[in-house]
């Protein structure tokens, strides 16, 4: 149904309205107008947050903690390489189309609750970037950028990681939307590096159902979407081997993400966006709480 909505903005609005907004709260504590709680002082806490009145009453050092609503910085990292232009059936979105809709919806939701949303688009290099901001006009800027994207070029996640290392110096939420079909074997290690830079990393792994089920039978000339390679094979002859390789790879991606505290969300492009976003947002709310 989503694919039938013509424009990205329309798809984003339709999705956003279906999602319960404001499920998450900022995990950051500090300068805020709203007092949250007291916490017993521990070495390392800033002395300026010590509540001296409470010390006078209880003869113990307590530190005041505050809630703030709008200080999350989120980078939406969208893969626009050639492989993202694939769709296995005419009634489905391409992987890039699905990623743009997902990214736009997330931007909409973030800005709506005063979080800052930024965008980085990459293929073999970063081709477009918007620094995270919380103004409502940011959503329009992001959607405009996404709307003009076409798939092309090789996938090089390293380019996006280098860009973020340079531009995202503060702790940020990094949401990568990609099919991860990068020939660079360091791909998963690069994602783990982002996490080590204290960013909260989420990987939306987008895959077309045809990539997961391999519904080919007849002799077919498979052509690469990112370079000039091609291979001729009869679908039914190679299906079993393909599915085994694909299954092993998916398991490997999930395992490495888990080991490196990277949230991994596998997304089939025939899956409703609600089904993807709602569990994701719910998990984030639980973790924030």
């Amino acid at each position, binding site marked *: 149904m989503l694919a039938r909505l013509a424009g990205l903005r329309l798809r984003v609005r339709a999705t956003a309205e279906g999602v319960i907004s404001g499920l998450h709260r900022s995990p950051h504590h500090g300068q805020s107008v709203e007092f949250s709680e007291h916490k017993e002082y521990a070495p390392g806490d800033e002395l300026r947050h010590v509540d001296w009145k409470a010390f006078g009453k209880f003869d113990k050092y307590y530190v005041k903690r505050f809630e703030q609503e709008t200080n999350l910085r989120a980078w939406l990292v969208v893969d626009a390489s050639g492989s993202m232009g*694939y769709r296995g059936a005419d009634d489905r979105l391409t992987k890039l189309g699905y990623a743009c809709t997902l990214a736009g919806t997330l931007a909409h939701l973030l800005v709506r609750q005063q979080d800052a949303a930024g965008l980085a688009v990459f293929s073999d290099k970063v081709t477009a970037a918007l620094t995270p901001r919380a103004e409502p006009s940011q959503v329009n800027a992001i959607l405009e950028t996404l709307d003009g994207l076409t798939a092309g070029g090789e996938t090089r996640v390293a380019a996006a990681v280098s860009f973020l290392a340079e531009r995202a110096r503060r702790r940020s939420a990094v949401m990568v939307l990609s099919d991860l079909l990068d020939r660079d074997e360091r791909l998963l290690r690069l994602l783990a590096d982002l996490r080590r830079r204290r960013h909260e990393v989420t990987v939306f792994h987008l895959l077309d159902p045809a990539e997961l089920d391999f519904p080919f039978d007849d002799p077919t000339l498979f*052509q690469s979407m990112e370079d000039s390679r091609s*291979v001729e*094979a009869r679908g039914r002859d*190679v299906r079993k081997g393909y599915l085994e390789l694909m299954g092993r790879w998916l398991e490997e991606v999930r395992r490495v993400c888990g080991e490196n505290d990277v949230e991994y969300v596998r997304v089939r492009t025939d899956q409703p966006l609600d089904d993807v976003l709602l569990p994701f947002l719910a998990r984030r709310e639980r973790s924030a709480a």
Partner: protein
Amino acid sequence: MSLSFLHPALLWGLAAAAIPLAIHLFYRRRPKPVPFPAIDFVMQARRETERRLKLRRVLLFTARTALLAAAALAIARPQLDAPEARAAQGPAGPAATAIVLDTSASMAYRLGGKTLLERAREDVLEVLSALGPDEPATLVICGGEAAPSADPPDFDRVGLRRRVVDAAQGYAHADLTTCVAAAARALGDPAAAAARRRRLVVATDLTASAWRLDAQPPVVSTPAGPARPEVTLLDAARGERLGNRWVSGLVAEPEPAVGSHGYRFGVAVSGEGVEAARDVPLSLRVGSGKEERTVVRSLLELPASGSTRKTLAHDLAAGGPVVVTASLPPDALPEDDALTLVVDVPRDVKVLVVNGAPSAVRHRDAAYFLEAALSGPASPVRATVVDAEGFGKARLADFDVVMMLDLRSPGPKAAELASFVENGGGLFVAMGDDVDPDRYEAEAKGLLPAPLHVVKTAAERGTPGAEAKAARLAEIDWEHPALRIFTGQAREGLESVRAWRYMLLKPAPRESGARVLARYDDGAPALIEARRGRGRVMLYASTLDPEWSDWTIRTSFLPAMQRIAGWLAGALDERRSAPSVVGAPRPLSLPAGLALAGVLGPDGRERRDLAASGDPAREGGPVLTPDRPGLWQLRIRDLATGGERIDPALSFAVWPDPRESDTRRLEPSELTAWFGGEAVARVASDGKPGGSRQVPLWSWLLLLAIAAFLAEGLLVSSP
């Protein structure tokens, strides 16, 4: 050990084995191009499965090729000729060999694209090739000679080979018993005394009709006494059953219902060892050479074995000799699929009816009933009626027969009439009130079979009791050609004829040659005939109108008058002798003043070799021995003028020997037993004299084809 094929021509089917390769090369499906993101996995999967897939493709290709090749080979009926211990082998050492080559008609049977004679020739040539340098040999060509003979064995291999190669296909019946006896006699010749063994090789088709197993088996006279030769029978039919169907009989009988020259042709068709068949075409052709045409097409229902009969009718249109051929579609032995017959169709008989007492009242007119009887629709007689005055002006040479009814006397025509009869004309005289016996005696003395005497009245017609007193015909000569047609109840039509009045005849002189065909019950001749020169004269003692006799209203009148007219014209005795059989001597009876100048065979070519045997100077006239079936024609020379011509009246048909059409084969054991058992005789059903055992391979090939089919199915359905 060698491989041979029963149907080598079918090996062309092996080309089908190239179909999978051709499909692979020329009809390969182009793969559909599809852009795909996870191509690395596809490439890796293909690399991992490539070896297995390649093996599977090779196996699939092999299975399909094997399936087609095995099926094609199986159809060609391959067999492995494995050597086995030689049977019928005597002591070691050089052998004198006598070879009998059957060239009889049945050897023309076609099997697997070759005639049996062609196979037999190859077998014999192989035997000759295998002979050692110290082994003499001789050859008997067994093609129907009454007394075959063989030269003593010698070492002229070139001559023998030439004789084998030149041995022509015969069409006669061969008596192999006689031929092997002649071969055994040759082996007993002192020229073969140096050889330690005597060997008899017979290349034949093993048809039962060629052997007389009740005769003594061949024995060779050797210095040590009579001995049985080693016998090898080379089966040219390779153990196959020889089914055959042939036209076994053809007879022609007049059938007036069809037309004035109508005939009924009885065609007998026989079969042996063939499947029953429906709607087998049978055709009847008339004429010969370029003028031959099919006049009747019919369908037969044939039993598997035995005979069936079909009757076909056709009006042969014109008189004279006509060639008729009944034929079946050609089969493996086409020489016996047609029989030819020469039918002498009676000529039209021109009769001059002289009405001596014309009457305005039809039923009292003497010629009214006769003219009606002779002019029937199927009658070969053409009658012209004149009165006494017209008779005086008539030219008798224009007619075959003159029939005078109640004519006072021949008058001035008497001399011409006598000359007419002397030269072969026929004369019929019927009595009546106007007939004057004295004038007949004066004008035509000696012309009539007997002199006329007086009229006798048995009863006055119309008076009480006249019917009972009337004279009846008795003592009828039913064997006379003119009356032979009356059989059974039909005779009553003649026996019931009554005469109230009739002419008594004076006794005929003994030298007049008169023959009484019928008498009245008082013994007086009623119908009497005599030959005068080349002609015939017949006299009826009563009238051919109801005045004296009631014959005209009897059922016998019409056929009797037509037959009598034919008889007097000489048409009834033009009967041809039966067709000859191939190889049977046929005496040729040539009319006086003619000599045989040449013989034309069924192919229309002059047979100078056979014409020599037809020497007219030989005692008993020329004799011809036709050597093939079909129509034979004679070219004759007029001794007076020296002119030569082909006389259709002397043509004759020659039929295939029915014994050669019967292709039932002997069991090999019967024949070996007759020769003295398996100790001395063996049948080589593969035609190989060396002794070999045939191992048929077609069943194994079929099994291979089935296995390939199953394997192909498994490979196609496997993932």
